Each structure stands twice: as structure tokens, then as C-alpha cells.
């Protein structure tokens, strides 16, 4: 069996795929890659079906040795790459010879790199997925130095292109499209205007569960408690502090604080590449926002 050996991991490297579905009624969230678009692209580059498991590398720091020849691709965050010390490009199909070492450095832009391996990372699935859910603990534990990960057999498809022309995740301010609601009516009119007219800074209290944002507090129209209700990735949930949390892949299945607006799904991918200190601006599709 083909294997790869983890040498170093950086702050957090996890196995991810497109997550678990069909079990949210028993408290099992979807999880999976935080930036699904980049994850799918990595799989397509190496000729894998889009749902094969790969590695989500948070802020770089990963190095691994191919115990057998590997075909890999890295997408998402703009990480410097090297194969046996020779610089390599992201968003391209790379070959790592048997015994070769792939290093994924700290990205200059973006937060999460996606490493697809032709054949997929074949750790044991839990409830139909190999994703590590950092909130519930389902799936494999985070990857650590010394781990040997099995790689599955190569799929029938071959890589179709050598490179995908995608821009690196931007640095600086991000403008993200949201849909107000479902609980926008729990907030004052000014609160929605504030959300759509102010930049919110990503704080260091951000992980796969969600990003805590800092900016002007969003005031509620009235008190009272919302009965807990189902949540989605991209929801901007507002706790009593008034400062929103943007839910990502490992968000809780239900939550008891009102959601003032929800990001479009493709915008969740872009938000998942934002780093602490970056500012997020929200606008509606109709164009209410700072740059409209």
C-alpha cells in the first residue's frame, strides 16, 4: 500500500473531505474542508473524484516524505512549496519521488492550503467521512509528526491539466456577499446598516468552528431568548456582546443566538482564507455596501 509519512505539521493539519451528511438530527455536523472550492480544485488537479480525502494545512508548516511515488497538488493559501528542496508551484500537478520530501511553507496570503494526493488519504471513515470535526471530535485526530497515512489506489481518471490559473487569496480587506436574515428582525435597523457599512476585523479567536469578528456591536431590538435552531456555515451569529461570529465548517449543529445574515456559500470559502487582522466588509447582493 502507498503511504506518506508526516515529518512536521505546523499549527494545525487535518484530514478533510466534503464532510458528513444525513446525521445532523443526531448532532453530527457536516465538517469537511473549510474552503471547499479550493479543496475540490486540488482533487480535480490530481484526477481524483472531488470528495477524496486530502489534507487541510493551516498556516503552512507541513512536511512529509513520500514512502512511494506520489502525485500531489496544493491549492488555497499561497504557500511556498518545495520537493526535495526545489521550489514548486501551487495549483499545479507535482510528482514526489519515492523517498522525496514535500515541504509546505507559511503562506504569504490566505490561511488554509489543501493538499490532494492522487488516490486520496485513506484513513478509516467515521459516519461516511474521513473529515476531522474539531468541535465534536469525530473523524481522525489532527495529523501529527510521525503519522503514516495510507494513500488509496489511483483512480481511473488521469490529471487533465498541469496547472489551474487561480489567483492567490487576497490580502487586505475582503468584500463578502451576504443575505440578511433569518433573524435580522431581532436587531435594530441601525444594526444591519452597521453590519453592511463597517469593516469587521478577524480576531485571533478564529478556528474551524468560526471566526470571532471585532467591530461595532450589533444591537438587538428586544431582549428575550431565541429557542435553539439549526445553523449553517456562513451564518453570522450574534452573541450578547453584539460582535458577530462567522461560522465555518465545524460550526455547532444548532445555536441559541440570532443570526443577522448569512454569507453565500462561495463567499464562505473566501472568508475561510482570511487571517487574523484582515477586515471583512459585508454587502447584500442588491449592492448595499461600502463599495457599491
Amino acid at each position, binding site marked *: 500500500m502507498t503511504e506518506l509519512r508526516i515529518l512536521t505539521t505546523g499549527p494545525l493539519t487535518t484530514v478533510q473531505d466534503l464532510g458528513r451528511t444525513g446525521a445532523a438530527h*443526531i448532532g453530527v455536523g457536516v465538517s469537511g474542508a473549510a474552503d471547499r472550492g479550493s479543496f475540490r480544485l486540488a482533487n480535480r488537479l490530481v484526477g481524483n473524484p472531488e470528495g477524496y480525502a486530502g489534507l487541510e494545512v493551516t498556516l503552512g508548516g507541513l512536511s512529509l516524505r513520500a514512502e512511494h511515488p506520489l502525485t500531489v497538488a496544493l491549492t488555497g493559501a499561497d504557500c511556498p512549496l518545495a520537493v526535495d528542496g526545489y521550489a514548486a508551484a501551487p495549483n499545479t500537478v507535482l510528482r514526489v519521488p519515492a523517498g522525496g520530501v514535500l515541504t509546505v511553507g507559511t503562506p504569504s496570503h490566505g490561511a488554509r492550503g489543501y493538499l490532494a494526493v492522487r488516490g486520496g488519504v485513506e484513513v478509516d471513515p467515521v459516519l461516511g467521512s474521513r473529515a476531522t470535526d474539531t468541535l465534536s471530535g*469525530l473523524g481522525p485526530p489532527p495529523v501529527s509528526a510521525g503519522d503514516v497515512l495510507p494513500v488509496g489506489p489511483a483512480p481511473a481518471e488521469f490529471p487533465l491539466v498541469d496547472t489551474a490559473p487561480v489567483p492567490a487569496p487576497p490580502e487586505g480587506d475582503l468584500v463578502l456577499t451576504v443575505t440578511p436574515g433569518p433573524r435580522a428582525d431581532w436587531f435594530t435597523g441601525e444594526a444591519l446598516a452597521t453590519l453592511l457599512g463597517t469593516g469587521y476585523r478577524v480576531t485571533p479567536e478564529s478556528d474551524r468552528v468560526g471566526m470571532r469578528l471585532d467591530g461595532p456591536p450589533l444591537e438587538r431590538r428586544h431582549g428575550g431568548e431565541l429557542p435553539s435552531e439549526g445553523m*449553517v456555515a456562513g*451564518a453570522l451569529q450574534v452573541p450578547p456582546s453584539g460582535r458577530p461570529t462567522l461560522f465555518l465548517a465545524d460550526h455547532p449543529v444548532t445555536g441559541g443566538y440570532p443570526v443577522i445574515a448569512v454569507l453565500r456559500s462561495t463567499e464562505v470559502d473566501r472568508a475561510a482564507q482570511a487571517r487574523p487582522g484582515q477586515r471583512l466588509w459585508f454587502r447584500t447582493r442588491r449592492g448595499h455596501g461600502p463599495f457599491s
Partner: protein
Amino acid sequence: MRILPLADSGLLVELDDLDSVHGLYTALRHQRIPGVVNLVPAARTLLLQLDPRHADPERIEHLVRRTPVEPGGLATEESLRIPVVYDGADLAEVAALTGLTERGVVEEHTGTEWRVAFGGFAPGFGYLTGGSARLEVPRRAESRTRVPRGSVGLAGSFSGVYPRSSPGGWQLIGHTELEIWRPDRDPPALLRPGVRVRFEEAG
């Protein structure tokens, strides 16, 4: 019925009460609706989580509105007996809060049928409703950093069983050896929405 969009990722259906939630959940769960990846029942809402690449929200909304919701629609007739040793760290506190004796707490807890209303706190956790009104107690003022797996607790009008060791703020009245959550078993969770539950004092 009010249907609120969560961008392109979900449709949140607001209903009058838990019975209507269970009614709609029961009606929808056996239909395979293209693009719907999860159904999340809660106290007053049913969330349909969507795969934005495959869901047609307008069509799904239309389908939901046409689905007859029978109030009191029973989610399932499955029932479960949970043997409990009533030795919880907060049993005396619960007795003091309710004005019952410790024996009385056990009798109230085992004396009625409970039902899983919804999940959400953790994989395998079920919020149980329908118990004795005399057992209503607030959560603990201070959460515990670690509540052992199998702990049986009370909070508000709910009872519940901790599927795994985790932090928690419920008042603990006992524990069960029954494995209510095992990811490698089918079904992984014994406490699914609609399941009827009887607590029994373990000998």
C-alpha cells in the same frame, strides 16, 4: 408556516410548536429531496441544510409548503428503556430545588415517559421532553469542565444523557451504562428525534 432562507445554504421552516416540527420532519425524512443534505429539527424550527450546487431552493420551498403537516405527527413509535443508577452529584441539590425528597426525584424521573425532542448539543445527545413538571430546575450556576459519559441530567424542562465525557452545566442525578452513542454502530445514536424513553432504576 414561515420559510426563511439562509443564503443559498439552508431553508429555515418556522412552525407553531414541537409537534408540528416533528410532523414535518417525519413527512420529509423519508423523501430524498435532491440538494437537501440534512434535516435539523429544533424546538420551533426545522432546518433544511442545502448543497448549494445541487439544490433548487424555490422548488424545495414549494415542496415543503405542499407537504401536509399533521400536528402531533409522531416521528417514530420506537421506544427505549434506559437503566439509571441514581447517584448523581446534584441529586441532593435537585431535591432541595424541587422540594422533593431524593427518592421523590427518582420516582418523578422514572414515573413518566419522555420523548426525544431534538438533538444538537453533541453527537448522540437528545433533549428529552414530556417529563414531570415538578422536575424543572435551572442549569447549574457553574458549568463543570468534565461531565462523565453516561451522566443523566436535568436542565429547565429537559432531561438528557451525556453521550461522551464533555463540559456541561446540567444538574446530574445519575448515570447509565447504556451506550447511547457509538459511531461504529447502526444506528450510532439511540436517542433520535421522536424516540420514546423510559428511565428505570437500575438494580
